């Protein structure tokens, strides 16, 4: 369906993005493989237990690096996810709402109004959504979630 739309319309969109993804991934792989072979061919290669040791400022590493870390990093990821969902849900609203002010879309606004969906309804829906999440944000702030000390 999308490809047919691209054929119908003059502007390539996702197909050229797909091409770019292939190109760029191929480029990265090529650089890596080429440099790997050139390095093998031209450069010295000496390994040993000491040289392969992780570089931790000259101190022999103690234990394993992949140790447990502070749970707050996890919490940041949770918070990011929550706020990102909120913002993403507001994106469709934010491209619809300015249309009510645009004379070019007067017919569209009228047809929505005839079903009872006025600009005020749109605004109220989005504002309730926004305010509920703002309350959540303030709660988190009061709880000290954003304190890193």
């Amino acid at each position, binding site marked *: *369906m*999308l*490809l*047919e*739309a691209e054929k*119908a*319309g003059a502007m390539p*969109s*996702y197909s050229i993005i*797909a091409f770019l993804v292939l190109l760029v991934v191929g480029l990265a792989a090529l650089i890596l493989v080429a440099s790997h072979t050139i390095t093998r061919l031209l450069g010295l290669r000496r390994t040993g237990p000491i040289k392969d040791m992780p570089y931790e400022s000259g101190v022999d590493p103690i234990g*394993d690096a*992949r140790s*447990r*870390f502070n*749970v*707050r*990093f*996890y*919490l940041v*990821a*949770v*918070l*990011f*996810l*929550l706020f*990102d*969902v*909120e913002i*993403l*849900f507001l*994106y*469709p*609203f934010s*491209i*619809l709402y300015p249309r009510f002010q645009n004379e070019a879309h007067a017919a569209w606004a009228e047809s*929505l109004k005839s*079903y009872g*969906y006025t600009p005020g*309804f*749109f605004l109220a*829906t*989005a504002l*309730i*959504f926004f305010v*509920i*999440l703002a*309350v*959540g*944000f303030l*709660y*988190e702030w009061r*709880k*000290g*979630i954003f*304190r890193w000390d």
Partner: protein
Amino acid sequence: MSVIEAIVFYIFAGLLVFSSVFILFGRNIIRSAMWLMAALGAVAALLLLLGANYLAAVQLVLYIGGVLVLIVFGVMLTAKSPYIRYDVKLHEQIAGFVVGGLLLAGLLVALLNSPWPKPPGVVSDQAASVRDFGERLLTSYWLPFELVSLLLLAVMVGAAVLARPEKR
């Protein structure tokens, strides 16, 4: 459905199945997470092929950018051994098969019994996708939209309670 589109569909569907199999049978959790990234990306591509480009973007931003980071962090938080591997015991495998089978059966029942609307021929205006989504979301489905915000609030409170900084 054109030939090119069919080819692209099968490529991404194949990638989805391939990476899902690797998620299942991989022994290293982080590598499984990477295969999950490929699987989610393939799903985003399939959504794009259906013309649902807003959903594809959401899939990329939320699932690959958010949920997968959570999974990776979760694995890093809990795993103790240097090489994060896991061995599945027999009774766990049986339980997994039972749960997966039930899920598959439920999905099949839903798939076979629901009417599938024919897609409208050519999508002439691609910009309609995000706009249509927004229109449906804010008119017909405004109540679920508000309920989502309550759900998010509940998750926020839950996160605050679970990961409260320790008292001093």
